[in-house]
Every structure is written in C-alpha cells, then in structure tokens.
C-alpha cells in the first residue's frame, strides 16, 4: 500500500490486490464451476459487482468477469484457482495479479477530481454503487469499481508511472 496523494477532499492509495480475469458464457454450469472454485457467485447483470471486505467480483461484459481479492492471499492459491478453472472447457481464467495496478480513490471530491481525467459520468444516477465500468482515464484504458465511499481504479502495470504522475499532477495543478 502506497499513498499517492492526500488532500482534504481526495485521497489516492495504491494497493496490492490479486486478480483473476474470467471469460465464459455465464450459464448455469459456468456459475457452478466458479462458485465451487472461488466460493463466490459471479454477478449475473452486466457491469454489476458483488463485493465485501475481501473481494470484488464484477461482470465486465456479457462474457467477461473480474475477480479481485482485496486482502492478502497466498498467490499460490490464486494460481491454483486459475489452474482448476482452466480445466473446464467453458472457462478461460487468466491470472491478472501482477500485470495490473490498483488505486483506491476516496474523498468528498473524488468525482470532480477524476472528472479532470475522464469524461465518464460518475454521478450516482449514472454510475450507481456496486457497478463497474471500463473507460478511459487520463487517456488510458481503466476499470473503475464503485464501492460507495471509494472507487477502485485498475489499469495495466505498464502505465503505472504515467498514471501516478497524472494523478499527482492534476492534484497539484488544481
């Protein structure tokens, strides 16, 4: 966990999460396999997320899900889940843990702050709690998860430095 910036109205912290990206048809068999391996039921509605303190399970699109582990896990366990899931023809599971970076953005002004970097409509009526979106932030592909009082934003690791610089830059200039 690294503090990227902190002000009265916005806080950005980089987190170390583990992630599995899943592809499949979302039918009963798929759901059963996932539930069996992960002990979590995948959400069925597009862009919906189910979450608690330990995980976020999001349906990114009609055939794609992402499962983020928010608390420290044994990485071997994640790889085992991936391996077990890939035993089934109906599922493609890819370990996304270290190829992505994760930022927790909170504070009263988080929407205004993020809207300096994205035109995505973050208003609660357009982006409700417990939903996710894949959009451009600072001109790069990001996923954003709405967890009520905070957002989790993820992007490819290769953009890590650029993205962090943009977050700090926009905060300093505002």
């Amino acid at each position: 966990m690294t503090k990227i910036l902190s002000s009265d109205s916005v806080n950005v912290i980089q987190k170390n999460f583990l992630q599995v990206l899943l592809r499949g048809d979302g039918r009963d068999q798929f759901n059963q396999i996932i539930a069996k391996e992960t002990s979590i039921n995948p959400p069925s509605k597009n862009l919906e997320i189910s979450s608690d303190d330990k995980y976020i399970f999001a349906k990114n699109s009609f055939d794609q899900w992402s499962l983020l582990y928010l608390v420290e896990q044994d990485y071997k366990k994640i790889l085992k889940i991936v391996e077990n899931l890939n035993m089934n023809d109906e599922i493609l599971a890819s370990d996304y843990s270290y190829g992505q970076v994760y930022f927790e953005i909170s504070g009263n002004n988080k929407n205004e702050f993020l809207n300096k970097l994205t035109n995505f409509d973050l208003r609660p009526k357009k982006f409700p709690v417990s939903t996710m979106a894949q959009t451009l932030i600072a001109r790069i592909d990001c996923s954003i998860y709405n967890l009520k009082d905070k957002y989790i934003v993820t992007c490819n690791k290769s953009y890590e430095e650029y993205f962090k610089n943009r977050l700090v830059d926009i905060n300093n200039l505002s």
Partner: protein
Amino acid sequence: MSAINNKNCKYISQKEIKITFDGKSYSALDGDTVASALLRNNIRLIGRSFKYHRPRGIYTCGIEEPNALVQILNEHNEPNTRATIKRTYDGINISSQNRWPSLAFDIGSINNILSPIFSAGFYYKTFMGPKGFWKKIYEPLIRRTAGLGKPPKNFRSKSIHQNHNVDILIVGGGLSGLIAARKLIDTNNEVLIIEQDCFLGGILKNSNKVKSIDGKNVFEWVNETEKLILGSKNIKILKNTLVTTYNFTNHLIALEDKFAGKKIDTNKSELTLHKIRTTHTILANGHIERFISFRNNDLPGVMLASSFEKYIERYGVAPDEKPVIFSNNSSTISLVKSLINLGCKPSAYIDSRNKNDIEDETKDYLLKNNIPFYPESEVEGCEGNKKVEKVYIRGSNKEISSINTSMLCPSGGFNPDIHLFTQSKGLVKWDDKIISFKPDTAFQNTITLGSVSGNYEFKNLCNEINKKLSFLKVNDLNLDIETNIRDDFSISELWETKTNKMSKWSKSFIDLHNDVTTKDLKQAINEGYDRIEHLKRYTTNSMGTDQGKISSINSLGIVSKILNKKIEEVGTTTYRPPYAPLSFGAIAGRSTYEYYDPERKTPIHNWHIKNNAVFEDVGQWKRPWYFKKDESESMHQAVQRESKQTRQTAGIIDGSTLGKIEIKGKDALEFMNLMYTNAFTKMKPMTSRYALMLGEDGMIMDDGIVCKINDKHFIATTTSSGAPKVLSHMEEFLQTEWPHLQVFLNSITEQFTTFNISGPKAREIISKVFTDIDFNNEKFPFMTFKTFDYKNTQARIMRASFTGELGYEIYISPKHALELWEQLFNYGKEFNLVPYGTETMHLLRAEKGYVVIGQETDGTVTPLDLNFNWMIGKKKKDFIGKRSLTRSDTAREDRKQLVGVVPIDKSLFIEEGQHIVECENLPNKIKTPIEYLGHISSSYHSPNLNHCISMAMIKNGNKLKGKKLFVSTSKGTKNIPVEVVSPVFIDPENKRLVS
C-alpha cells in the same frame, strides 16, 4: 473631458492598485478590467488597427470588443487579450500591440495614407508577381505590418480540463439565467450555471434599466438569488467562465480564467477548459449591441452606448462627462439616466427615429434635463486627431451642424447573441420588430430565454421562462420587474449614415477589427461577390477574432440594400466555434510535453535507465533502442558492438512489449486455423510455430509465435504495436462471423514479462539459472516450450529466436521480472552477456533474413510476396484472407517480392527507402519516367559480414537473383550498383538456430 468615478458602484472595490501600460504606471481600482482602468486614467488610445494602423480606442465593454487588444507582458507575453474583459491586478504589465516604434507615433500608419489603394481584394489582385516575390518580399512584409500581437515564447501551458455531466446547463447568469435557476432550486435536476463575469446579474449590474425586482433593488435580488442557488443541493455556479463552443449531442466547451484579477501562480493551472455534457441547454446569454457605420466611426472616443453605461454601472467609471449619444432605438435613454444620476449630462441626444415614434417619456426626460435633442437626425461623421473632437450631425432638415465633444456613443440596436444557438445547428429567423435574427427551431435540446430569444421586454420575461421550462414540471415563478425605461422596445432601421465630406482618408467602417469599410462591401458586390459567404471571404468582413459581433448584421443590412433584397433573403454567414478566441494551450490541456502521449514501461525499465539505455517509442511503449557503453559511444558503435557480441557469446533483449493473447475453448483449434494462415491441426502440444495473420484482403496484418498447449488452449504472441488490433480483430470475428465457436480470449500482454536470450552461449547461461530444466537440444528442441514453477509463479520458456542464433524466450510474472533479469546477467557475466536494444534486434534479424511487419510489409504485401508459401496451410478449408490470395492481382508472379541486396562495392552503404532502378545514373532533370523496380525495406551495416546488407521488395524479385541493379541515393544522381541475392545472409542452413 475627463472620466469620473461612480462611487455608488457596488461591483468595484475602492482599493487602489498599480498597473503599467506601455511602460508607464497608473492607478486603478481592484476589480477593474484593463479597459476600465485605462478609461479611469483618461487613456483613450489603446491600439492600432489591423491593416491601416489607424488609432483605435475602447469600443465596447465586453467580449465583443474589436479594437482594444493588448499584450500582457507578465503573463508569458500573452497577445491579443481583450482589454474589455481582462481583469487587472496589482503589478500587471500591459503593452499595446501592432505598432512601432510607439503607440502615439506608429510608422505603420503610413498604411492609412496609402489606404486608397488597399481596397477590398487588394491582396488577391496585387501580389501576383514577379515570381518568387511572394515568399521573399510580400509575405514577410505583410506579416510584419499587418497583424496582431506577438506570440508568446518558451511558454508551457498549465491549463487543465474538467468534465461535467449535468441535466441542465444554463449559459449566462444574467436576469433570465437566474430566474431559470431559481425555478430549478432543489429539484431533481443537476444544474450548472456558467457566467463569464465574476458577478452574476448580467443586465441588472451592467445597466440602469431595471429598477427593482419584487420590490427589492437589483443588487439585493441578485445576492439573494445567488445565496439561494449556493444553498441548494443541485445547482453549481462557474464564474469567470465563457462558453465558447456548442457541439453536437449537447456537448459544450467553456473556458474558465482561474486567475481573473489575480497574479498568475505558475505552479497552478491558469485556465480550465470545461467540457460539459448535458441533457438540456438553456441559453440565456443575452444580446450584443450593434454599432452604426458613419464617417470615422473608428476614432478613439467612439464607444457603444450600452458599453458606456456598463462602465458606469458595472465598473464605476463614466469615461466622459458629456458624451454625444446617437441612437436608433428606445433603450439608449437608460444611458442618459445613468449619466444624470451621476451628475453628468450628454452634450446631445441624436435619435434617427421619426419624432412620433420616439417615446413621450424620452422626450420629456430630455426636455426636463435640458439635453440638446436631435430627433429624426443622424451623425454624419466625426473628426479629430487620434480622438473624437467634433461630431457632425445631419438634422431633420438635412443641414449639417457640429458639436465639440470627446466621446460619441452610438447604438444601432441589439442582436440576440445567437452564436451558440447556431453552433448547435439551431435555425434562426428574421424579426422585423427587433430588426435582427433570432432563434427559431432548435436542433438539439436547446432552450433560449430572454433577449437571446429576441424577447427584450422585462415584464414578459417570467411568462416566457415559465412557458419554455414547463416541460421540466417545475413551479411557475412570477416576479414583479420594475424598469427605468419603457418596456416595449422600438427601433428604426439604420445601418449606415450618408457621408457628406468626401475624403480619401475618411472611412466608414463596417468591420473595425479587420479594417473593412462599407465602401469595400459595395466594391465587392460590384465585382460580382454578391453571395454573402463569398463577400465575407473577399473582403474579410467579420473574419477577425471578434467575428463581427457588433457589425455582422449591419453588413447584411447594407448588402441587402445594395442587392435590393430582404435581409432574410441575403442570409447569414456560418457561425463557427469558438465564440471567442481561446488558446491552443487551453485546448491541449495537459496533453503536452511529458503527457503528450501516455507512456508504457516494462517492469525492468529502471534497469535499462541505469544501464544507459537510449529509448525509442514503439506505439506507446518505451523500448531500449541501444545501450551506450559510455558517453562517447555513438549509436552505430553501440549497435555494432551489441550485435557482434550476441553472435559471439550471447545477448538479451527485453521483449515484454510483445502482445500476448490467451485463447481457450473447445473450438480453439478451429478458431486458430481460421485466424492464421498456418495449419495447427497436426501441430504437437507444447510446441510453437511462427504464424501469419492476414486481413480479408490477403495482405499480411501481423505475425507472431503461436504456442499450442493442447487443441483447446493456445497462447499467441503479436507484434508490440499490433497487440490491441489483433485482439479486437479476433474478438470481432468471434462475435460476428463465428459466434457458434466456443472460444474465449484474454490479453495477457502485461501478465508476462518477456526476455529473449540468444547466442551460442545462451544455453550455458540459462542452464545456470534454471537448474531443474534440461536444455539439451534433444530434450528441448527448437520451437518447443516448457512451463515450470518459478518461486511459486508459473513461468514459460520457449525455444525460439529472432536473431538466427540459439535462443530462449522466457515468460515470467512481472513480480519476479527484474530479479530474474539480474540473475541472468550475474550468470552471463563470464560470457560477456550483453543487453541489446531494438536497433540491434533489427540488424540481427536482417542478417538472418527475418521480416518485420511494418518494415518489409506495408499493407500491400501477401505471404507469397515474402516467399512464405510454406506458412500457408494449403489443405485448410478456410482462413481469413484465403480467397484473396487467389485473386489475379495477388496471385500474379511479377509482384514485388522479398530479396536480399548487397552493394557490389562493399564499402558503400545503402539507405532504407531508396529506389531500385536499372540505370546507373539518374539524369539531372528527369524528363521521362524511370522505371521503378522496388525499394529498400531494411538496410544495415553487418559487423559479422563487415559490409552493408539490405532487404528489398523488388518487382519479380525471385527471378532477379544474381542480377546487377542500382539503388538511388539521397546525395546525388549516381546510383549504387548492387547485386540481388537471397535475403538470408547468415546461417542459411540454420545450423546455429537448431544447435
């Protein structure tokens, strides 16, 4: 006459500040604009005109200003700043522009003396020859003498962008905008109000026209309204912000001056470009006063009447005690009342309207205050030396009389400010009552309120707003608006007054900014430019940075009279964004310099920096181009060293940027057979294959290595820059053409860091790192791969090479990438393992005859052209591009084909991109076409062969091997003799590769 302060003005502080104009210090009040500050100091000459360098003053009090443009020296030398909106602060340093050596004595004003020859179309007719004069003489001269300010130098923009998503955007925080906002307080609509000034109120603060609202004075009412809005849960206000653009789908752009009235903090953003997406747009952006054309209507001291009133009411300064007022409408009496309230009195009130049409209240008021009144009269012209000194009046009896005065305030009526409405593609219509165009049919969800909709009657305003906003189902609001003037607007048409005194240097301007006269319009029409769009371009009328805000309708009026047409038949020119100029810096925001493009870095980027890598951009990736051994080593030396060392012992490259796609599903094999030219059916599990992907046109789109885990699971690599394209290409075909296939795809580019170690010592080095793996040739042959556990993560090693040497490609989690990379170097030290960059990679692969997509291919190259017939699964039923390969053009044998080329004189170097021809020399002047056989696609000096090697695409190349041809050079007409050879220069038997 001198300016006097209006101490009752509530919008300006009495705190004194110091400003500098043209090197001289002046006192101003905190809150002044540059214009109000200069007027307060009785400075009327502000600049010189664009073309004739005529002396110019302050004409307006807002964004519509055509004359008073200044340069702000202490703000990065920002040019073309409108003095009428730029707020001052203590220490601001302002300079006039477009004059030399000084504002008072400007050599460029010789243009005014020569002005009789600078008529409309002068440039088009005059600068035709002699040849070469345009570039060397005319253009530099014109650019020096005509123009605006000097551009800023060494300026790094600090503007940022802010996106908004709202339900309703209200453009303009004036009376109409505030009434609309009051109706929307605490509703479910998210509302944003944008106001260009730092105060709300619009006409309520800019004039004396409204006396009270609901019994409260206007200042109190505006404050109360602002408080209600700020206390609401749903409305935000942006001040000092100007909406410049109204795009399609209710997307608007507005520019906020974050440091209005404050010294710039260079660590903060100076400007914010707001990008607003809204469901409904309420335009309440008011109106703009028109001027009237008369002789010398550009002299400093001529100022629009409502602007004069705005200076009194908004900025607390009356620029003159006794101006002459000249009007064709009923609104101007408000200025007279403002002056009287201040203890001043106009020298004369000239009204062109018929005496019977002039309101009794106006006549009584003028009489009561003993103001000289000229009904049914007009200003013939004015004269003076760099300022108004005398005004000539043509009375109702057509006699000319004169008055000495230093200011003249014309008012030609008002134009609804339809600029944004027309940008939104709304249609306008002509209204004879207000003699102007007003909004008619909206194209988007646009509502116009108040004077922008052509409603100049205050008492009717609430009705209009209630009616137009009824669809929002909000409560009606009825306010009692009491005015100081008659509410029914009356106007008579007057565009230009007749000039009596004929002088070649007296001019009646129609466009003050671009120095276009009414005579120019007439001349253009005489010359056949009778369409308004043609006329605009021929004369440059309304093409200045003010876009003719105070004059464009006047020009339509004049043109319609000449053409004997109605104005609506003449039509308007197109209103284009932006509404007012905004800098490129503001548009660019932070997408400049270090943030010009997002940057991607591999997990071992910092190691590369520490080891003197010089980077090149590959897509958004930063890839090491070459590694400098020391400061003195050139790129050529580094590349030669790296490639020689790799062939002698071993070299390693960071290939993390390669695209990687995981493909899985019960139909994965069928899918791969369809996507690539290769046949994968008989391919053994845990082997890999170099594969080609074609477009539907049969042309090579991308290449890579496909690893087959089993028939249901593959991993494919792509080129670095082609990864997103290939993945979306695959997804598109899966979802649209073959939805019956059960296949799933994931990009795993970022999940695996990739190194490729190659060279004769590669096996020895890698064996020391991965001691559990048997790298023996038989156990681990070429184009096979193994997966294994590395520190609790899954890693993969593939036997592959892009250098032609024994090579291994390692795929490892980014978590352990740097550690493994350093470990390889530790073990590689004894073998002089060398890191190499993309340039060396290109050289090594060219020696081996390997192609690079985008270098040997250019979207017109088929696999057959590269002699890749062996890569096409001929027994396959289908694959993307298959049908196209049998088209007559793609199948013909004389297409350009890949060959090698070497210079016959081995000391010579062949340049990439040069043409291949059959002639030894090119003529000095090419009169007849020379047959072009092909081009050099890659060319390097091979340190291993010690001469230049090139790859080329040559027409019918396969049949030309052994033939002597010639390659052009960039240096002269003598071509380099070359021999066409095989493109494989090193190890054609693959002994090194499979060793």
